[in-house]
């Protein structure tokens, strides 16, 4: 089945029919939330750092052109190459051509959401280059032929038994669901690939303008392997992922790491400033930094520009009741959860993605946990409004809402409506509850009963009661 043609709601309904993977997601997401809460409790400066981090992001984006130019100049001064990619095609073409020119046969990658966004693996494989993901989660979903279901933990939806089966089928090993054994299998398989790959491709957590440094954080050490052993390192970066100074980076990293995994410090914090210099014992011969626009510069000028503050910690996914209930794949884009519901339509257009902003109860858990305090519910509302202005909402809802407004602006009609509602619902109800209400509102009674309205509304009771004498 071609899932790309399904609507969000259809994909979500598919997901709801797969309880084992939903259980894995729910357990995993809740674990992240607990770890973060523990880390925050032991880190009293966190709230101050979050405020500071928000200011840094706002400052960076307010002069993004200046910081980008400074960053690119410094990458080049350090001996690296910079390529400005307007869109996915340009970015992919650049990497594919580079691979061709340098006779690259095998690429090893560390986790990068930007390369997922532009589907770089497909482009490289189509050009005959073998690509191996080295982040354990990415490695698992690459074997399964799937997309990431979580920004941070791409294989969150997989159970250990499913991983054991995948390894047994693809890696010529005996089935095990022991976590240490599974880790060991992946580790020994990947070790050879790190040593034989000609090119390492990574993402960028932050680019530092003042020094041209690429900051990359990983827990498995695969990022350091990927960026230091192969002879060419290509780093792909969304154009908004900058910080002005190394001092700013020192604030952003703990904020990211605590929010993402609940660690005080991620195990491997890499600061990559240029390729190997003469006399240095290791590092790649070439460093290429691809700076990707792909719709970002247009978001800057819209009412949802704040979404570009995002540092991809994934915390908003973990606390989101919608994400917890349907997982990441249902969103249909590599960016899932609350941030994805804003970012995907903002990057790729509301025409195709207008349902996503509605995939939220507006409970505000995302805003509360966001390290940068991005007002995600407000951005979702902005996109809902923009979608309605472009007539993406169903006609019954548009007309219904206009009628409701007309009634609500006229108290007499509102009272009349309540009376009609009361009579009608009481007529249809059994013991005070309706089992079914008619379309287009029938969704309600698919999952819950609907209460009949009271015989007398509050305003009727109020009108009937004697004016109260208050002692003054």
């Amino acid at each position, binding site marked *: 089945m071609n899932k790309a043609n399904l609507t969000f709601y259809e994909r979500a309904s598919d997901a709801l029919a797969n309880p084992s993977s939903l259980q894995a997601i729910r357990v995993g997401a809740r674990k992240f939330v607990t770890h973060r809460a523990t880390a925050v409790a032991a880190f009293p400066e966190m709230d101050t750092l979050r405020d500071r981090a928000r200011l840094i992001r706002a400052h960076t984006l307010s002069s993004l052109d200046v910081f980008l130019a400074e960053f690119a100049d410094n990458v080049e001064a350090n001996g690296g190459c910079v390529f400005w990619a307007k869109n996915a095609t340009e970015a992919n073409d650049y990497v594919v051509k580079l691979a061709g020119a340098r006779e690259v046969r095998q690429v090893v990658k560390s986790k990068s959401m930007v390369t997922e966004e532009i589907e770089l693996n497909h482009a490289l494989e189509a050009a005959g280059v073998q690509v191996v993901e080295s982040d354990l989660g990415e490695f698992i979903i690459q074997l399964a032929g799937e997309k990431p279901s979580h920004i941070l933990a791409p294989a969150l939806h997989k159970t250990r038994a499913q991983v054991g089966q995948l390894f047994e089928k693809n890696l010529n090993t005996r089935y095990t669901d022991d976590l240490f054994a599974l880790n060991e299998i992946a580790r020994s398989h990947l070790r050879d690939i790190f040593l034989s790959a000609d090119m390492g491709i990574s993402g960028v957590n932050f680019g530092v303008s003042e020094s041209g440094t690429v900051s990359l954080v990983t827990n498995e050490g695969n990022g350091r392997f990927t960026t230091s052993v192969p002879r060419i390192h290509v780093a792909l970066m969304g154009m908004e992922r900058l910080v002005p100074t190394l001092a700013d980076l020192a604030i952003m990293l703990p904020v990211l790491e605590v929010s993402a995994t609940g660690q005080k410090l991620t195990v491997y914090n890499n600061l990559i400033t240029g390729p190997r210099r003469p006399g240095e014992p290791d590092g790649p011969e070439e460093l290429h930094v691809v700076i990707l626009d792909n719709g970002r510069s247009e978001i800057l000028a819209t009412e949802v520009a704040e979404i570009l503050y995002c540092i991809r910690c994934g915390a908003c996914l973990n606390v989101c009741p919608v994400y917890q209930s349907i997982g990441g794949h249902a969103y249909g884009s590599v960016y899932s959860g609350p941030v994805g519901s804003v970012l995907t339509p903002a990057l790729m257009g509301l025409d195709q993605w207008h349902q996503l902003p509605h995939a939220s109860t507006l409970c505000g858990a995302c805003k509360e946990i966001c390290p940068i305090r991005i007002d995600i519910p407000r951005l979702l509302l902005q996109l809902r*409004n923009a979608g309605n202005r472009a007539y993406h909402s169903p006609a019954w809802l548009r007309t219904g809402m206009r009628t409701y407004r007309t009634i609500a602006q006229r108290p007499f009609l509102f009272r009349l409506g309540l009376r009609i509602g009361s009579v009608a619902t009481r007529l249809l109800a059994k013991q005070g509850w309706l089992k079914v209400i008619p379309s287009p509102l029938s969704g309600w009674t698919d999952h819950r*009963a609907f209460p009949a309205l009271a015989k007398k509304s509050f305003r009727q009771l109020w009108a009937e009661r004697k004016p109260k004498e208050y002692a003054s």
Partner: protein
Amino acid sequence: MVEILEAQGIAVEFSCDQTCCGQPAFNGGFWNDARGMARHTLDVFSRTGDPIVVPSGSCADMIVHQYPELLRDDVEYVSKAQNVAARTYEFTQFMVDKIGLSNVGASFCGRAAYHPSCHGMRGLNLREQAQTLMEHVDGLEQVELPCAEECCGFGGLFSVTMSAISGAILEQKLDHLIASGADLLVASDVGCLMHMAGGLQRRGSEIAVKHIAEILNEQG
């Protein structure tokens, strides 16, 4: 709510001209319709200068936080919105924070789980007002609701247009509620109450569902 306030010697007015605050339209992205309802509501409440008490956290949050934003380009109404927003309180907020009352002398027998509704909790930052009021209810035992701060899945139109997702979130909430051992579910938002009550009804559960004012108005 009226009876509780009056028992404290507070004069209560209610204008039958008030209708809906417009939250369904606002949350659905129909901001023009929401503005129409907001202006009507502001006209009604601008007739008085007294505090406004709302028995539902999300409606209060709509008036307090969304009206001034929604009408920010409306020269006539933006100041009305700010004025009304500054004197609007959710019920438990009014009781505990505004008039400083946490014991209304109520008594009610039951094991109660309190669901802190999202808009009250995160929008209005109501973290323990309701629990404080419930602590002082004679005979009422408060039990801990696991993952209490997670949404019940209502979300207004979301519960109709994305009913299956909303229903899945509701099931989680009800599982937690049943695990808590409570025989009574209390909340301060009528939307969430209707949603959870509808779910419990569908399950055939015996757990009673009440707005906090219904508890506080019981005199044993």
